[in-house]
């Protein structure tokens, strides 16, 4: 095969990898530069817009009249616009930047035909724009995590297929013998999402199921987007970056492989725990509860492995922006997953269901775990793509402290407030009558916690602004003379200095 394979050669299911194509890391980075930057810039844009939507929705929870005169900005629409901007706009864009890049590096293969990835990036962002515009306009579909109007779906599917195929092609033409655990996670995620999305589209949109089946499918899909898409991507990134940055192999590679297969076996079942108490066959709920508790195994495996890899290198980790963010996310993966397992227990769920506790749990998973790890990945990737340092260390610190403390405040406020809310909704007098006869009284009691949520949202917005300024400053700054152009170590090492 020539050094510039044709599209047909790249898509061919047969053929052997040519060792002469084995790429150095700098070459992989260079091949991914343009598409990754397109996805990254788009991701940052959606992150900022999604945060503004979030703040508006949070303020409306305590002040319902805020921007209440415009139907486009009513709570239901703004809240769904926030969710979709974050999941499809920020989350998927940043995944499409980071996942092919890591897959290419681990496969030692240049990313081929990147113009197709560029086209995919443009189409994807058009689809998200159309989808969110549709939600704000009032065309929203009333299915959790599938709110975008159906006219946005074809572009989403086509674009996703383009990116997914490119990750698989990078793996297909790998120039390495061993398949590293991150490759397992990334590959699995890129196979799992189309499976989830296709089943959900058929059973919820094109030929909508009714009643209990609809709820079951909805929660199977929504929970698995977190568990079989965002989670394996973030874990794959963490398993690559923690040992890579610290220069130390993962503590127990054996455990990491066990963790992967345990996630593949158990997570798929867990989503139905959202329907505890609903008119769902008891065995389905029991299966979901058992699977949720079984998730303790991969969670502890990952937690132990990450912790023991970092032991003794805490100072170096603290000095690395990447490790600060990634370890924050990894630690929160342990906490949010154990909380999730507890929430799947019937007696706990009786209290937490229909309260802000669940909202806190969702933010804990998607932000404190997934998003923080992806921030870490961006801090590692961008200097290698652009061959220049981050322009401002202070802004990175502002980002970490504001995002980290902001999300912790949000999780604590929503989960403590939600727990109290659940206890009040369930509280009964001795004669069996409700202690709180007026539901609105319980709603009023949540106000202080919701104010804290707005405050936490403001902190996170400040963090995101610092991140955004640093990203665009870096893109438009010039590389200083004398800086190395190797894929790593842009500043001089101790020996070189």
């Amino acid at each position, binding site marked *: 095969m020539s050094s510039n394979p044709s599209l047909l050669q790249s898509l061919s299911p047969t053929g052997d990898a040519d060792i002469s194509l084995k790429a150095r890391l700098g070459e992989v980075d260079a091949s991914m530069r343009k598409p990754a930057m397109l996805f990254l810039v788009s991701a940052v844009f959606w992150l900022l817009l999604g945060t503004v939507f979030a703040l508006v929705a949070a303020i409306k929870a305590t002040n319902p009249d805020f921007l209440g005169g415009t139907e486009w900005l009513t709570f239901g629409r703004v809240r769904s616009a926030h969710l979709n901007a974050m999941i499809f706009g920020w989350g998927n864009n940043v995944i499409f930047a980071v996942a092919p890049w890591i897959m290419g590096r681990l496969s030692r293969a240049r990313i081929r035909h990147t113009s197709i990835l560029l086209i995919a990036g443009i189409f994807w962002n058009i689809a998200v724009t159309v989808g969110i515009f549709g939600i704000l306009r009032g065309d929203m579909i009333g299915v959790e995590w599938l709110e975008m109007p159906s006219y946005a779906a074809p572009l989403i599917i086509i674009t996703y297929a383009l990116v997914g195929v490119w990750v698989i092609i990078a793996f297909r033409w790998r120039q390495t013998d061993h398949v590293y655990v991150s490759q397992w996670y990334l590959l699995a995620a890129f196979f799992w999402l189309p499976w989830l999305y296709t089943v959900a589209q058929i059973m919820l949109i094109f030929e909508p199921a009714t009643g209990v*089946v609809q709820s079951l499918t909805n929660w199977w899909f929504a929970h698995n987007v977190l568990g079989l898409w965002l989670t394996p991507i973030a874990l794959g990134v963490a398993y690559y970056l923690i040992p890579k940055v610290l220069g*130390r192999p993962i503590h127990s*590679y054996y455990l990491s492989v066990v963790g992967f297969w345990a996630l593949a076996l158990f997570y798929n079942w867990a989503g139905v725990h959202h329907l505890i108490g609903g008119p769902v066959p008891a065995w389905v709920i029991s299966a979901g509860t058992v699977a949720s508790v079984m998730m303790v195994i991969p969670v502890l495996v990952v937690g132990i492995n990450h912790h023991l890899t970092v032991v003794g*290198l805490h100072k*170096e980790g603290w000095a*690395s922006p990447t490790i600060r963010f990634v370890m924050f996310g990894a630690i929160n993966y342990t906490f949010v997953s154990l909380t999730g397992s507890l929430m799947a227990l019937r007696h706990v769920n009786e209290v937490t269901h229909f309260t802000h506790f669940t909202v806190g749990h969702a933010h804990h998973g998607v932000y404190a775990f997934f998003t923080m790890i992806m921030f870490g990945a961006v801090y590692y990737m961008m200097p290698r793509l652009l061959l220049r340092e*981050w*322009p*401002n260390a202070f802004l990175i610190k502002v980002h970490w402290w504001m995002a980290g403390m902001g999300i912790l405040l949000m999780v604590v406020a929503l989960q403590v407030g939600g727990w109290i809310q659940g206890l009040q909704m369930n509280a009964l007098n001795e004669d069996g009558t409700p202690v709180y006869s007026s539901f609105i009284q319980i709603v009023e009691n949540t106000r202080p916690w919701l104010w804290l949520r707005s405050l936490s949202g403001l902190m996170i917005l400040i963090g995101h602004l610092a991140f955004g300024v640093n990203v665009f400053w870096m893109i438009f700054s010039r590389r200083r003379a004398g800086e190395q152009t190797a894929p790593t170590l842009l500043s001089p*090492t101790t020996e070189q200095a």
Partner: protein
Amino acid sequence: MDWGQYILIGFVFACLFFLGAALALHWAHRHGQLTNLEKGAQSIFDEDEPMGEITDAFPRKRRKKKN
């Protein structure tokens, strides 16, 4: 569609899913991916980013060699 058809769709996709997982596991076993795992852990390091080298720090901070 009635329950039976939904279950059929779900069953077909579940079979595909498990078949895919089983094939992946079989492939991994046949190609020695599940043996000598500790060596595999070092596969991410190379001459560009060697083991023992810290490869990230805040800008304008020097990096140290670690063993």
